């Protein structure tokens, strides 16, 4: 057998065997991300810990009062409940959409992806307001129901838990869709065909073959959505009733109004500890050495793994995909065109009209739900009144004019764009490296490290902002773009890690080993084999990193100083004073970005698939 590249004299077989194991590779891979992470995040967390125990006195009083007098505990329970329900709803709605996305042709898929991401660069403030417009007593939904004669009294849809769930689900849905979609697009549909050729009906083949293969994505999506939901506070504050208070709102008050770091730090430490503990417990419960539940369990049966490994398309044609790897995957299959067009139609729909209708219908409803606020925001931006008004009584372009003529808006938008680009580059690089290293690790060490990289999603942003201020002030970068980029990168890395890890678990080791056995060095293996296979995940992670940075508000509030203003900062500060319809105009303009991407994609894909060499 070909030896793995080893450049050291081997004295003892034990050492040679150890070097064959990937431990050294892991350490090298993990070094850069780990150090970056420790600097950016570990140091603030250490400071938080010291604040929570009242260093140098070292008391536990903040932890004790968390469970006692301060009223945090019922709110924590409520927060966890809300997050759980939101995660479940996102799963139920997101799965059909992801399935549809992964099953249609490239052009249609690009269009659908554009629709899914259309609302995502719009401010969550504006989207929350759009829900108020939709769900209010005299809002759109109630008016339609009354007009249809279905109800006499308006339904209580707003300022209670219902509207909070609806608002949060709408905002968090893409975070469920993308991991699911990334995993689904890597599944070989021929396994389902094979099952059907054995006589399984469409439901059975879905439940027994397709669904288990997507569990990686399900778990990653649920993890991401749950952790994000835990940290929400603007949406529950705007849409919720008295009881819909989340832990983040309490921490916000403690930090912003009382300037008391102790209780907030203790609460954050408890949240962090609980998350890591949960991850460790869940990973220990699963049996087997390579059972890594979070981030992707290898739950495929032996038969399915064998089938995956027998896929025979050469690695190089995968690397030749153009445009977004996601959409190009199908098109690079080197097969006769008739079979390819057949495979394009989801196997499950092979002649089964009811299954097709059901899935498409469900996905369609979910998509409509996703887009509903968008349909409100655009008319809002054309209103002529001084405040937000729906439906607008008179139309005007003044808010667009206000945006373009106002230097501060344009400067804020430009700054946000630059910072987001830098954040994406750094976060994607660091996150991908970390995921590669994590994929090679096993057991508790992996869970701990995974938990560390995911931790910024758990620790409330406001507390991170406070913890970052002092070190940044000491090296005198408060207000500089570097500080803002650093603050954003911390929060962006977890997205990349979660999504890329999910995809890495789906990708079998055998591809890498096969390439190595052909003589490829580690770098070549990475570029030619691993990277194309995880490309959907890397791109997805990059997209989320971008959105995170573009939307990031709280940490920026602390580290941006008085000189730098990002777009979310400007929108938030305007909202504090008046709800200026300019933000509706800005949101509508931002929706153009996915449309532009769609157009570019269509232009790239002008050439027909036949031009792919086999």
């Amino acid at each position: 057998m070909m030896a793995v590249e080893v450049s050291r004299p081997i004295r003892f077989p034990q050492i040679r065997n150890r070097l064959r194991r990937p431990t050294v590779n892991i350490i090298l891979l993990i070094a850069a991300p780990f150090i970056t992470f420790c600097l950016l995040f570990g140091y603030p967390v250490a400071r938080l810990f010291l604040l929570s125990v009242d260093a140098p006195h070292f008391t536990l009083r903040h932890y004790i009062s968390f469970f006692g007098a301060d009223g945090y505990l019922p709110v924590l329970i409520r927060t966890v409940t809300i997050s759980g329900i939101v995660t479940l709803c996102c799963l139920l709605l997101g799965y059909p959409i992801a399935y549809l996305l992964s099953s249609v042709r490239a052009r249609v898929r690009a269009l659908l992806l554009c629709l899914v991401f259309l609302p995502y660069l719009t401010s969550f403030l504006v989207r929350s307001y759009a829900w108020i417009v939709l769900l209010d007593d005299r809002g759109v939904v109630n008016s339609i129901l009354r007009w249809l004669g279905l109800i006499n009294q308006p339904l209580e849809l707003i300022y209670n838990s219902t509207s909070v769930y609806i608002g949060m689900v709408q905002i968090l849905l893409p975070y469920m869709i993308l991991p699911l979609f990334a995993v689904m697009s890597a599944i070989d549909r021929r396994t389902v065909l094979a099952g059907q050729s054995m006589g399984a009906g469409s439901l059975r083949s879905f439940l027994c073959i397709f669904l288990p293969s997507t569990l990686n994505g399900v778990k990653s999506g649920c993890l991401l959505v749950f952790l994000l939901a835990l940290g929400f506070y603007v949406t529950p504050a705007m849409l919720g009733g008295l009881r819909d208070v989340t832990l983040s709102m309490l921490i916000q008050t403690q930090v912003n109004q009382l300037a008391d770091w102790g209780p907030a730090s203790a609460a954050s430490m408890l949240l962090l500890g609980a998350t890591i503990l949960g991850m460790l417990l869940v990973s220990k419960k699963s049996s087997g050495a390579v059972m890594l539940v979070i981030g992707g369990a290898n739950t495929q049966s032996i038969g399915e793994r064998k089938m995956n490994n027998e896929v025979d398309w050469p690695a190089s044609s995968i690397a030749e995909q153009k445009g977004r790897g996601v959409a190009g995957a199908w098109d690079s299959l080197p097969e006769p065109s008739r079979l390819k067009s057949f495979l394009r139609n989801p196997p499950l729909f092979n002649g089964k009209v009811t299954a097709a209708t059901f899935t498409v219908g469900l996905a369609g409803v979910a998509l409509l739900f996703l887009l509903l606020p968008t349909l409100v925001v655009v008319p809002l931006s054309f209103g002529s009144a001084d405040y937000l008004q729906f439906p607008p009584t008179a139309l005007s372009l003044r808010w667009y004019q206000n945006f373009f003529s106002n230097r501060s808006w344009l400067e804020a938008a430009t700054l946000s764009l630059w910072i987001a680009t830098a954040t994406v580059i750094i976060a994607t690089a660091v996150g991908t490296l970390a995921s590669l290293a994590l994929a090679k690790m096993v057991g508790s060490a992996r869970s701990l490290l995974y938990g560390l990289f995911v931790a910024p999603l758990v620790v409330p942003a406001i507390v991170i902002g406070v913890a970052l201020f002092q070190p940044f002030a000491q090296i005198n970068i408060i207000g500089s773009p570097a500080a803002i980029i650093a603050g954003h990168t911390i929060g962006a890395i977890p997205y990349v890690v979660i999504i890329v890890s999910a995809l890495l678990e789906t990708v079998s080791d055998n591809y890498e080993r096969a390439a190595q056995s052909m003589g490829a060095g580690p770098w070549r293996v990475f570029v030619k084999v691993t990277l194309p296979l995880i490309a959907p995940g890397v791109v997805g992670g990059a997209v989320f990193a971008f959105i995170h940075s573009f939307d990031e508000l709280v940490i920026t509030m602390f580290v941006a100083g008085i000189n730098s203003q990002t777009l979310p900062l400007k929108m938030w500060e305007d909202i504090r004073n008046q709800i200026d319809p300019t933000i509706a105009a800005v949101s509508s303009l931002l929706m153009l970005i996915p449309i532009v991407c769609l157009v570019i994609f269509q232009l790239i894909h002008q050439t027909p698939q036949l031009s792919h060499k086999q």
Partner: protein
Amino acid sequence: MKNMNRRSMLKTLGAASVASPFVFIRSAKAADDLVVQVGSGDFADAVVREYIEPFQKASGLNVKVAKDWMTPAKLKLAVENKVVETDVSYTGWLQAAQANKSGYVEPIDYSIFSKANLDAMPPEAKQPYGVGGYVYSTVIVYDASQFSDPTKRPKGVAEFWDVAKFPGRRSLKSGVYGSGVYEEALIADGVAIDKLYPLDIDRAFKSLDRIKPHIKKWWNEGAEGQQLLADKAVDFGILFSNRASNLQRAKAPIGIEWNNGKLLVDNWIIPKGAPHASNAQRFIEFTTHPDRQAAFATAMFMSPTNKKAFETIDPEFAKQLPTSPENMKVQFVRNDPWYVEAGPDGKTNLEYLIAFWNKWITT
């Protein structure tokens, strides 16, 4: 193996080189003589127009405008880490008193103020740590188009609490940030205004229990309350007076009931360690000039603290301001320093209220 090591190093270096231009850009330290924090939106525009630009002309100083809001957290971080960027800021009286307790503000130099102006200002506006800049209140606001019959409108807090006689959807200020509608709750329960402080917290919450089921939305930010009335989502609310005036100015059919209004004073403060503290003192003195206060009041529908400003304000317009003579008679001033008084265990009343509120909302 070596390749991997080098490549990952190169990657990190590449990222670092992308970032490096930014690291070395410091925040611009121009030759400013004064930095004033003005908030945002219309409010900021009014401050710039009525205070900053005239001050620049009168004093010849170069003033930089910071469109940013001050919070207790930011103030604490800036002062403790010695990165104070702003010289003058305004904040609520409550937050100013709080900041003073922690030693985060410079004392005001009243020796440069004119005696005439000082005498025309009420004692609440002349604190050692801050100067009252403007006054507004929380008042009962109703949708006049729904309630054209005056007998159907609540004429005070007690009637606001009476849901049987005055049916309608309501909105109140949430207590999640500390201050809330506790004074109104006590007045509705029958406490005399001069016996309000120290607040009987238990009694206030019992009174809130009565109104709790009838509140459609507890608003957190002023703009939320304004939007609720604008959207006709509620029939009555207790909002900030300037929010209600904004709606009236935008021709929405909103009525204001000044009875039992609660007056709030916002203070100009100087953060401790401000780089241009002496210029800051001059600026704050400038803001108490009657003509400036009159101009600002007219623009923002908030009352001046210098009574002499009323001499130049149109009396008809003045009726809409919180501290006009008729409106003053039926309102009371919130005692902000009480909120930052600490009990024997070191917790301030504000912290007690927040803790009580967090418990109360889950019951």
